[in-house]
């Protein structure tokens, strides 16, 4: 992975920059010793490592603003980092950039049950929000699988999802407001406890912007009343095609399950070996359909789902009878990644989305590719919303296998786009999928996105080298192709 050419002069100024940062953040707020910085070398995409120029650990918004102002004035690049769980390398440091780690800002600032809103600093973990409110029967809906560790600020940066997106949406649909600091040190508030933006929906733009537009220093999310009842239905099929049809039929019946997950045979067996959840080992595809809500509704829906899948040839149908059983049904799915980790020395987790009806085609292409690349693949799939997580199994100690696995992964993502889907459903582009952006977007599409970036960060100091395969200077991006005549108002500031 090619990163922007580091600025050697900047690297030579490390001591100078560290002492500049210490003046702002105090001795505890800066790490510049290469050995101490090693814990910050990578995020969840741990094949890539880089020691940053220095690590800044601000304790509050004012310190973030002062740090950004200092870096902006000195032309120093910034890479923001939450809990470092990104699977796409969003928090991969730059050799000539300051890593801005927000972990010290980890307080829940306000719980407002009347408005069903929680305000937290960016370093608070996703699960900590639910823990803070569950005593009163509330929870925070988006539940990425890293929720025990990932930070809410990182969730905003990546627009994180989880297994309940079909019914409850992604981060962007559950976010009410943020405080952010722009690269020039301005502190802005977008949204709050009210709904909708008064002007442009910059809150929506910030969500999923992967740390390229601003630093989120405070987050307000909506919390929901916990459903009265939850039941999971475990369904086995002897063909992935029937399973895919059943998913479509459930939605066509007007049922929006809280979660609808699919696993293929290799994933079923790896999970069953690991947690003995009672999955049917001979099934070609397994569906877990979770229904939640008032008890009367859940009872009706459970019966309907059972009827629909029976009519489509389900070979196993089990409805959870207790909360323990429901959790057991989920245990295999939730531990699918570590379960795969037991049967293969290494694996790559991909994250494409396809229109759901393309699933059979996608699975058959994947099995052809598996033979072509000589690597096994197991699939877990957010079936309700079309988000695929193929796990490519390989051994990094065998020369050439990592490269083959990466090529296999890229081929899968290209197929996702060919079938009408996208490169990433919830993990983000980061560095991992950066060079594939051209598969999905034209040059003009990407330039327009970068122009928006220029409106926030005209010098490309925030997280450069992520998301966009080619960095264009803002002045160049702003140039207009005018056929005749001059631009009006030449005195107006433009890019």
């Amino acid at each position, binding site marked *: 992975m090619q990163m922007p050419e580091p600025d050697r002069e900047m690297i030579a100024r490390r001591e100078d920059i560290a002492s500049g940062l210490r003046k702002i953040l105090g001795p505890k707020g800066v790490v510049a010793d290469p050995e101490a910085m090693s814990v910050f070398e990578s995020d969840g995409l741990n094949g890539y490592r880089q020691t940053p120029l220095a690590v800044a650990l601000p304790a509050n918004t004012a310190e973030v603003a002062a740090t950004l102002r200092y870096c902006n004035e000195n032309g120093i690049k910034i890479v923001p980092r939450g809990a470092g769980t990104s699977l796409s390398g969003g928090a991969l440091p730059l050799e000539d950039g300051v890593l801005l780690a927000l972990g010290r800002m980890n307080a829940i600032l306000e719980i407002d049950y009347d408005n069903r809103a929680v305000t937290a600093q960016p370093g608070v973990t996703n699960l900590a929000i639910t823990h803070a409110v569950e005593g009163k029967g509330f929870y925070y809906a988006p539940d990425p699988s890293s929720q025990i560790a990932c930070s809410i600020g990182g969730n905003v940066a990546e627009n994180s999802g989880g297994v309940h997106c079909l019914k409850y949406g992604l981060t962007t649909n559950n976010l009410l407001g943020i405080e952010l600091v722009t690269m020039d040190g301005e502190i802005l508030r*977008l949204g709050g*406890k*009210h*709904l909708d933006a*008064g002007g442009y929906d910059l809150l929506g*733009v910030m969500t999923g912007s992967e740390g390229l537009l601003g630093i989120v220093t405070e987050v307000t999310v909506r919390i929901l009343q916990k459903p009265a009842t939850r039941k999971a239905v475990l369904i086995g099929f002897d063909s992935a095609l029937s399973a895919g049809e059943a998913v479509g039929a459930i939605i066509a019946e007007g049922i929006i399950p809280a979660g609808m997950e699919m696993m293929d045979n290799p994933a079923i067996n790896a999970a069953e070996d690991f947690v003995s959840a009672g999955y049917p080992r001979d099934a070609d595809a397994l569906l877990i359909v979770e229904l939640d809500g008032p008890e009367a509704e859940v009872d009706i829906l459970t019966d309907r789902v059972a009827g629909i899948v029976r009519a489509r040839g389900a070979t196993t149908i089990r409805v959870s009878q207790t909360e323990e059983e429901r959790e057991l049904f989920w245990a295999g799915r939730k531990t699918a990644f570590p379960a795969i980790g037991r049967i293969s020395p290494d694996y790559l987790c991909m994250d494409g989305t396809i*229109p759901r009806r393309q699933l059979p085609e996608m699975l058959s292409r994947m099995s052809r590719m598996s033979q072509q690349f000589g690597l096994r693949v197991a699939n877990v799939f957010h079936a309700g919303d079309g988000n695929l997580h193929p796990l490519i199994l390989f051994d990094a100690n065998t020369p050439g296998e990592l490269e083959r696995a990466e090529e296999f992964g890229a081929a899968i993502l290209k197929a996702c786009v060919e079938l009408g*889907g996208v490169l990433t459903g919830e993990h983000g582009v980061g560095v991992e999928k950066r060079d594939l952006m051209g598969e999905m977007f034209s040059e003009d599409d990407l330039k327009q*996105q970068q122009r928006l970036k220029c409106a926030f960060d005209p010098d490309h100091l925030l997280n450069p080298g992520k998301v966009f395969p080619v960095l264009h200077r803002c002045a160049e991006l702003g140039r207009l192709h005018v056929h005749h005549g001059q631009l009006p108002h030449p005195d107006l500031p433009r890019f």
Partner: protein
Amino acid sequence: MRRGQGSAAPVLAVVDVKELKDALAETVASRTRLELCAKGSRRHLGRPVEAEKVLDISALNGITNYEPDELVLMAKAATPLAEILKTLDEAGQMLAFDPPLGAETIDEAKGTIGGVLATNLSGPRRMVAGAARDYLLGFQAVSGRGESFQSGSRVMKNVTGYDLSKLMAGSFGTLAVMHDITIKTMPKPQDASSLVCFTDTAASAQKLIRDAFASPYEPSSAAIVPADLLIFSRVEGVRDAGEKGVAAIIRIEGFDISVRDRVSGITRVLDSPQQPLCLGGEDSDLLQMELRETLLLPRQTNRVIWKISCPAAAGGVLLDRLTSRPNSLGYADWGGGLIWLNHPEGGDAGAEIIRGMLSEYGGHATLYEASENIRRLVPVFHPQPAALHDLTRRVKASFDPLGLLNPGRMYEGV
């Protein structure tokens, strides 16, 4: 083309995307400022546009793809809203964000899907189902630079690149001309019921709503309506309940057995001294339509209507305060989070007082309906702090550097 504002600007009508692109390229070359228009039904929203020409995109219409079991619909941006809603209805689906139709029935719905999205208008279900912006999955557009671009896709889980769909929704055509859109559809609830509970003040109605939402019975919307507006309802029993004070209206939707069960559950939770009125399907739908279409506000010419977004729990108190001022009438939707206020026309139409009061709670107030003259004089959109306004200008310039698309529609000079 329907003319909403007596504008005499010449009309530039395009028949397809190629013509649209050519027209915008020519516009950039000649620096012609354009007002975007299809059916013109939402032209009264926002500030009056200062433009030399009207760009009519109404020929860019038609549903291009609809897959109900994938919950996705694609259409040309100027497809009539009525056509979209009828197509969804036949498949048992809906737009979950429940946009105001400018009409009582879906057959008569005014305007286009592009107009609904560009203005980010959402109805009573917004508080649980999300806004128009939450349902725009992707789009294709031509920017104010005359360049085609697209963002998003047809799948609902997508984080590839910036989420420009959010930015386009609610941008009032000031950034780019959307010509193709992809939206997420949702199943229509099988049954619905509205509980109407009477109490003495909006603030106490607010408490009933809070309790309903803290229960496990999942209401789908809630409104607060004072007696002096209930009389405008066509629903029997609601209209005649004028003596009874302020109504908390709580809607429950879903599968029939579930709705019955939850209605009795909420009735128990509310423990109201007066037995709530329970409206069945048709009456419930009629009342919710009246709330969505602001039909409970007095119908008069030159009326001024404010759309005030505030934290839901503050809605009752704020509504009591706002409506205690002379000749001010209003009700709250979105569980208190949206106040519709009818205000006398004089002076600044109440802008300073309303926005001042709102600043104690947080939120924004938009001048939703007013004469062209007032909309020119009074900031229609909530004024922004300086740093945010500067960023807004830069965002506008990143799509439309010459300020050619709907200039001044949202803010003066933007």
